[in-house]
């Protein structure tokens, strides 16, 4: 297929979901089935277009140096400069054009069943379409401006969808929190964009990032404010600020766990296909800016440290949560930390790999947990029916997702893992797919995607460690420990949810979900298992040889993306057994430990969770290291205090006082004008008024007086104007 055609297809790929948003909002918002059908078909169309581009792109050898470009159009050309907006697909974009529409399509299909009984069904699909379309637009953008527009569009969609159950206070609070927290990062990103533009005069990725000369100039220029780093480093760090917000990195990670207040498909969108991937995508895009400073430069250090802290933070908190979705939310934070840390040690390919495999298994886990919640809720309803429970049944039927809507808020929490147990028999498809996702998350050796991608990161970190890189050493140790915790909490989650006996009647009566929900789970489970084989290291014992030339495909495909720079030459790595053994030990060790504690003797109803025996540490972790409380004390309270004082002192004091003064002045002038009016205008207008009156009865009814006033003041103004003219002429 010709490149022009591919470019055109790239233009078209994001359009169907965006159009579907418009069509649903404008025309079909009253018809539920038609709306969801439009959304699903649009997303599938986008998926097909993207796949055509992807599979063609894979066959292009020099895609990194010469990406597929769509025709760019110039936006607001002005005398000195033109600003071109276009689309492009390079290896990085191509891999995203595979993952994003696929994951989105599955989530859309899943939602048709999951949201089936929600009264705002069409609104949900409208926003979901916009969300998917914005992410697609972001992926194909060839410049920072349109990327930023789509970035913000996603910010808005996440706000609208997290707060979808807007009658529930916790939902809208979560929406505001997500929006405000990511805003902090967006501000930094915007600063980075502006700084980049002032330095290079362009925002096109390829003019900056594929151009070794520009990059090296940026690296040689010292940054503003005498920060002691290069302009390239400062821009990279500012742009990384955007990633910290969007991809929930420490210290802006607090919004992501609350984001699960939205319906579960939204969580899947945010955690896998769109929002958080966008942040990592941006950082990957600007990898050359990090790279140009050489190994272990300041920007790399910042990125690596933040990533490592986040990975550890997320993993520790996830151990001490009861809410099934909350465990997953913190595990996302932790896994994103893995990716960011990988970028921080220069392991570009490993980061891309982990991002893709994580997207698949995390979408799977979220939708699986949604299926579990759905099942338990149905079980609960069933029980309520049987017992003639005092909960209004009609109300229950109206609001299927009891915990997620405001009006039906029963004391029973269908998301609490302590209320589950034994679901393996009740929901077999959900169980086996969830198991596949969980094993991938834990990094179960050889047969899961998560193992290969995590192993890749550890191998790269170990390689850095052996060359004496400080940041690689930190990353290696922290990530290895986090991976151990990951495997442990995954084992805990699976055991508490699916194994043993049901701990509540609701769980005992849970039912398997509809095919529209289980089908996406099965597809994703296949990816969670087999996706890892696209990137088995070439020199891996036995398996590397087994895959032959296909081994390490993803890495070699993606690495054509990077510019060859003097400062940074990646040496060919040789296989080393230590990182492999480490991954084996932490994955199996964590899973084994989890099995010992939870699997062997599953919890009984009413039994205390063994992790609570950790006492103070448990409380600390359960309360998420008290970050929310800390921020409340450090930021929110002082800001509120400032705002209050501002309103008291400045608003009510100074401004009101000034306004009052103005008002009095105005009254004074008005009084003077009234005199002027009485003496001159009324006097004059009487004269004209008489004339007008003579026009007749009709004329007198024309709010008599006004026209005359208009004419007179115009005359005065004309005289003043003429005086000005004559004065200026001198």
């Amino acid at each position, binding site marked *: 297929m010709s490149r022009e055609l591919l470019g055109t297809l790239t233009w078209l790929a994001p359009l169907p979901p965006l159009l579907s948003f418009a069509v649903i909002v404008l025309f079909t918002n009253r018809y539920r089935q038609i709306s969801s059908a439009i959304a699903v078909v649009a997303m599938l169309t986008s998926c097909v277009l993207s796949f055509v581009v992807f599979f063609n792109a894979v066959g292009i050898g020099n895609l990194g140096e010469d990406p597929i470009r769509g025709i760019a159009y110039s936006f607001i050309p002005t005398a000195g400069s033109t600003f071109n907006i276009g689309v492009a697909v390079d290896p990085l974009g191509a891999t995203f054009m595979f993952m994003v529409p696929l994951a989105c399509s599955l989530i859309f299909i899943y939602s048709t069943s999951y949201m089936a009984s929600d009264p705002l069904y069409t609104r949900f699909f409208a926003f979901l379409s916009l969300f998917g379309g914005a992410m697609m637009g972001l992926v194909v953008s060839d410049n920072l401006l349109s990327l930023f527009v789509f970035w913000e569009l996603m910010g808005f969609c996440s706000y609208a969808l997290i707060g979808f159950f807007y009658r529930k206070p916790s939902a809208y609070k979560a929406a505001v929190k997500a929006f405000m927290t990511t805003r902090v990062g967006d501000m930094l990103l915007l600063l980075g964009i502006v700084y980049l533009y002032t330095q290079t005069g362009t925002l096109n990725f390829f003019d900056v990032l594929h151009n070794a000369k520009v990059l090296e100039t940026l690296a040689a220029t010292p940054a503003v404010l005498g920060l002691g780093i290069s302009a390239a480093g400062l821009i990279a760090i500012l742009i990384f600020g955007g990633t910290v917000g969007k991809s929930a990195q420490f210290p802006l990670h607090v919004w992501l766990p609350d984001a699960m207040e939205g319906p579960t498909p939204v969580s899947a969108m945010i955690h896998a296909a769109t929002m958080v991937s966008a942040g990592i995508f941006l950082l990957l895009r600007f990898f050359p800016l990090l790279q140009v400073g050489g190994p272990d430069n300041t920007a790399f250090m910042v990125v690596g440290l933040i990533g490592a802290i986040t990975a550890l933070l997320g993993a520790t908190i996830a151990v001490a949560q009861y809410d099934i979705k909350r465990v997953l939310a913190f595990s996302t934070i932790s896994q994103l930390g893995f990716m960011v840390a990988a970028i921080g040690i220069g392991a570009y390919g490993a980061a891309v790999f982990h991002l893709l495999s994580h997207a698949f298994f995390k979408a799977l886990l979220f939708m699986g947990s949604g299926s579990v919640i759905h099942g338990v809720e149905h079980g609960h309803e069933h029980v309520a029916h049987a017992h003639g429970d005092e909960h209004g049944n009609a109300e229950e039927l109206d609001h299927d997702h009891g915990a997620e809507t405001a009006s039906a808020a029963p004391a029973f929490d269908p998301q609490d893992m302590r209320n589950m147990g034994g679901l393996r028999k009740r929901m077999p498809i959900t169980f086996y797919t969830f198991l596949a996702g969980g094993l991938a998350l834990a990094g179960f050796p050889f047969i899961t995607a998560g193992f290969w991608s995590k192993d890749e990161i550890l191998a790269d970190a170990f390689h850095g460690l052996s060359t004496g890189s400080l940041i690689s050493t930190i990353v290696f140790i922290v990530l290895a420990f986090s991976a151990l915790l990951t495997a442990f909490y995954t084992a805990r989650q699976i055991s508490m949810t699916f194994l043993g006996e049901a701990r509540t009647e609701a769980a005992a009566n849970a039912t398997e979900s509809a095919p529209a929900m289980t089908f996406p789970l099965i597809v994703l489970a296949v990816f969670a298992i087999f996706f890892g084989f696209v990137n088995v290291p070439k020199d891996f014992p036995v398996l590397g040889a087994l895959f032959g030339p296909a081994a390490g495909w993803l890495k070699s495909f993606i690495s054509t993306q990077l510019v060859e720079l003097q400062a940074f030459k990646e040496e060919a790595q040789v296989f080393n057994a230590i990182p492999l053994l480490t991954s084996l030990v932490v994955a199996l060790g964590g899973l084994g430990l989890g099995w010992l504690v939870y699997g062997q003797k599953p919890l009984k109803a009413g039994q205390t969770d063994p992790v609570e025996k950790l006492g103070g540490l448990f409380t600390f972790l359960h309360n998420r290291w008290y970050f929310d409380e800390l921020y409340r004390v450090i930021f929110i309270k002082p800001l509120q205090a400032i705002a209050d004082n501002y309103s008291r002192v400045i608003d009510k004091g100074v401004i009101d006082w000034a306004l009052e003064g103005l008002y009095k002045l105005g009254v004074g002038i008005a009084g003077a004008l009234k005199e002027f009016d009485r003496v001159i205008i009324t006097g004059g207008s009487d004269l004209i008024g008489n004339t007008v009156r003579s026009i007749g009865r009709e004329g007198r009814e*024309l709010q008599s007086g006004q026209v005359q006033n*208009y004419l007179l003041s115009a005359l005065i103004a004309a005289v003043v*104007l003429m005086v000005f003219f004559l004065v200026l002429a001198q």
Partner: protein
Amino acid sequence: MLVVVLGSLPLLAGQNLVGFANMTALDGYALFLDGLFAIVAIVIVLLTLRYNQDRGIMRGEFYPLLMFSAGGMMLMGHAVNLLIVFVAIELLSIPLYILCGLARPRVDSEESAMKYFLLGAFASGFLVYGIALIYGATGTTQLSEIARKISAKEVPETLLLYAGAALVLVGLSFKVGAAPFHMWTPDVYEGAPTTVTAFMATATKAAGFAALLRVFLFGLAPLASTWQPIIAGLAALTMIVGNLVALSQTNLKRMLAYSSIAHAGYLLMGVASGNAAGTTGVLFYLVSYAFTTLAAFAAMTSLNTAAGEDQSIEAYAGLFRRNPLVALVLGLAMLSLTGVPPTAGFVGKYFLFQAAIESNLVWLAIIGVLTSVVSAYFYLRIIVTMFMREPVAEPQPLSTANLGRSVALAITVIGTLVFGILPAPLLQLVNTAVTAFGVTMH
């Protein structure tokens, strides 16, 4: 007929002719404006077809009067002689006086016609007096001659000349509704039938600016150092007055009247810049403003039924529930008037501010930006009312959808969005027009 005019324009493109004893010109500038007036008139006709029926004012004379007026506007674009400027103004104004009163015996329509007539006559007086003084000072009414004689110092720069320029400025300021000569606008706009108001707010204003550009940037260009600060002052005053007073309006039509005053201020900023960028900005803005304002008025006609014309903002509460399409069009128009991307209003304002900054009128650009911020308040309030409020207990009936209005809505919405997202083609047209116009300054 209008379609024929529009269709013939590309054929004439690239020509540069003069006719009528050198008093009219046929150049890119004139053709550009012809196109604009033709499109506006077509949209107005499309809207009127049903509107007049709904309001029970089916009067055949509407269409010929509209054609006369549009013809006068086109003549204005072609005029390179002060006399033709005057004739064109009269030709476009007199049919409008009648059109305003078309909804008789509704009192406010008659009032509107009467006031417009009185003020218009007054303005014409200023204009013709100014033309006379300029003729007295230079001995010609041909704009190119005036410019040549002044710059060649063939005539002394007498008080007569300056007084003439001042009076011409006053006359034209009336026509474009610039402060402090704007007072007629709200009353007239409110009373006139809505489609006529739309025509006045877009085409008449464009014609006024067509004349302002020709007279000041071409004929009186050598006096720029004198008129520049004065027009800049008028621009600032107009922006401030228009936007501030619009804040307190409770009637949508009246609010749009003040908004049209405010936009005249932004356009004057382009005139005051006095350079090619300013001319480009004014022409671009005229187009974007025309499409946007027509979109707003077109949406408003859906609330205009024989039952009564309540254009209070309250009447728009919850419109999104009742007719989402119309509410979205009106919402889009409000965003474009505020100047939010990706609408044409944003691009237009961008060019005007840029022009002002290029000619060192930074203070003016700052006032422009600040007043734009103020304007967001009253434009967005309409959106809030339509989308977030519950409808009033007994909402006015909506007139049913009809083909004419749907086409008009489609044209205006497409214009507002396309020129906002893809401004380049229009910009190219504008640049052709400006090149033909031959800005002689800077």
